[in-house]
């Protein structure tokens, strides 16, 4: 029997406190590193900023763990070393992101004006043009692609998770979806082009063909993300619903889907953001025009990425203006994609099941 009343025996604990580096130690090391880096790398080796940063990093990555090891002991020293490495890779990863954002914003913001959004490139030589036609093209083609892919993708995922249960057919579908995920976008474009050539003859260009190409790219992403979200819905909830005498299809539509809707919407929005920037398949299918075209079933339709591509590749004699348009269009595209990501997060937050605590 366990004796609950006995007093714990006197023990001699190892000391629980030990020497620690002061809180400012990492920052001091960084400052020292930068100074040493500037003197050794910048001046003595004459390497400028790059050499300064490299030498400073070497100083920090060596000095801080060794100092910590001497004062705090081996485990803390290793902790400091890994912390420095993690922060370094974080900084490294931020470089392309920040510089890309800076490039796009600094070069693109100058051209932005109401006119830039209202005008198309119809009959424009040099200044006075805009991206209205490309903006509308992007919105229409992407919206149509979403309209095609979301029902197919979500229903496929529902079949795989709720009905397929790892039978042969669902394993084949999963395999095909995996293959589709790996399709290069240009191949999706070729597929859509070939499909439409079969119906409309060679050289066909229309917005709808672009939507088909994009949905080939979107469907596997939607299937995958929806599948993962549906798998996260606990089996308990399905059983609770069955036990109330609710048929399977109502359980799926009224219990499973609402529980997973936040994740599904997030997945769909990210898939939309992913295809909104596609260029290659649209070059083949939707083509280029300088005119506004609202009809996706008739004639060429320009999207922002295609517009950017041609503005840089074939600027003609007004190279300066066309380059400015390209950067402006790039900024708008980045903002659209970013806005979609924000929307996805907001929707995810709004629909997420609440605990009320």
């Amino acid at each position, binding site marked *: 029997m366990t004796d609950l009343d006995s007093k714990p025996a006197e023990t001699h604990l190892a000391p629980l406190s030990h020497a620690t580096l002061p809180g400012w130690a990492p920052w001091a090391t960084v400052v020292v590193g930068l100074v040493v880096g500037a003197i050794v790398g910048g001046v003595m080796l004459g390497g400028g900023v790059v050499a300064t940063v490299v030498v400073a990093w070497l100083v920090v990555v060596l000095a801080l763990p060794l100092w910590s090891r001497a004062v705090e002991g081996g485990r803390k020293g290793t902790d400091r070393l890994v912390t420095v490495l993690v922060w370094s890779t974080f900084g490294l990863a931020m470089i392309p992101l920040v510089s890309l954002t800076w490039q796009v914003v600094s070069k693109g913001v100058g051209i932005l004006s109401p006119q830039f959004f209202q005008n198309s490139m119809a009959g424009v030589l040099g200044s006075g043009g805009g991206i209205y036609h490309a903006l509308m093209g992007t919105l229409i083609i992407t919206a149509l692609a979403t309209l095609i892919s979301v029902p197919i993708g979500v229903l496929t995922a529902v079949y795989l998770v709720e009905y397929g249960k790892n039978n042969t057919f669902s394993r084949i579908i999963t395999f095909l979806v995996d293959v589709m995920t790996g399709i290069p976008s240009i191949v999706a474009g070729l597929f859509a082009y070939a499909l439409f050539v079969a119906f409309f003859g060679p050289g066909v260009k229309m917005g709808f063909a672009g939507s088909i190409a994009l949905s080939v790219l979107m469907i596997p992403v939607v299937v995958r993300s929806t599948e993962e979200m549906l798998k996260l819905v606990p089996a308990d909830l399905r059983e609770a619903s069955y*036990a109330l*005498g609710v048929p399977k299809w109502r359980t799926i539509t009224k219990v499973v889907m609402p529980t997973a809707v936040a994740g599904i919407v997030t997945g769909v929005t990210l898939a939309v953001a992913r295809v909104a920037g596609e260029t290659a398949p649209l070059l083949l299918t939707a083509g280029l025009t300088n005119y506004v075209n609202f009809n996706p079933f008739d004639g060429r339709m320009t999207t922002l990425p295609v517009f950017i591509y041609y503005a840089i590749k074939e600027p003609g004699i007004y190279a300066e203006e066309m380059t400015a348009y390209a950067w402006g269009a790039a900024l708008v595209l980045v903002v659209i994609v970013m806005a979609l990501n924000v929307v996805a997060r907001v929707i995810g937050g709004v629909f997420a099941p*609440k605990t009320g605590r």
Partner: protein
Amino acid sequence: MAKSIDVSDLNIYYGDFLAVEGVNISIKARAVTALIGPSGCGKSTFLRSLNRMHEVIPGARAEGKVMVDGQDLYASDVDPVAVRRQIGMVFQRPNPFPTMSIYENVLAGKRLNAKKLKKSEADDLVEKSLRGANLWTEVKDRLGKPGMGLSGGQQQRLCIARAIAVEPEVLLMDEPCSALDPISTAAIEDLIHDLKSDYTIVIVTHNMQQAARVSDDTGFFNLRATGEPGQLVEFNPTKKMFTNPDNESTESYISGRFG
């Protein structure tokens, strides 16, 4: 409205594996029947086969007869959805629907089946069910709050309210108190006592005292040996079961010599 259940020669399988073999039992209406036994002996499996929840698990099936009110639940033309509307179930872990409020959770059985209810009818049903589950006074001021915000014991009583809101004939409970503290357990045991007058209740429990406190009849399940199917060893009135059981293994299980 309560119904009795007569089970004869019921074999329950998971795929090719025979989990429970040859159960013959007759469960009385308006009484509490407790099922006890060591883990893995098929109590829950048997309980789930009483409202055809068993077959929700892929590959699971049952053979034999389960007669409720003269109808065989496993006859070929029986719709499992209709069975579950008559025979409700409360699970081991409280599982309120996370997207719904307390109010909507109670009405889930009606709403999910697309029953149109007038506002006043719905309000009455919610109050009646929550009162029935001893939860009304605790939640009446926050019916619009999410069901997940309640404590574990309250969530379990919410699940009971949800189950009795569809007015079943029989209520199956699969270890309803195993995740709860003694006070919530006492509240649910009181509730089982109250519900007995209207419903036939079958409860699986690992807690022998609980079986002794709440039930009129007790069934003891056991395995002959590891890997063998589980079977119903003894079924008797609870009083006899706990004072003078017929079977030797029942006595050693109840007195704590194994299991």
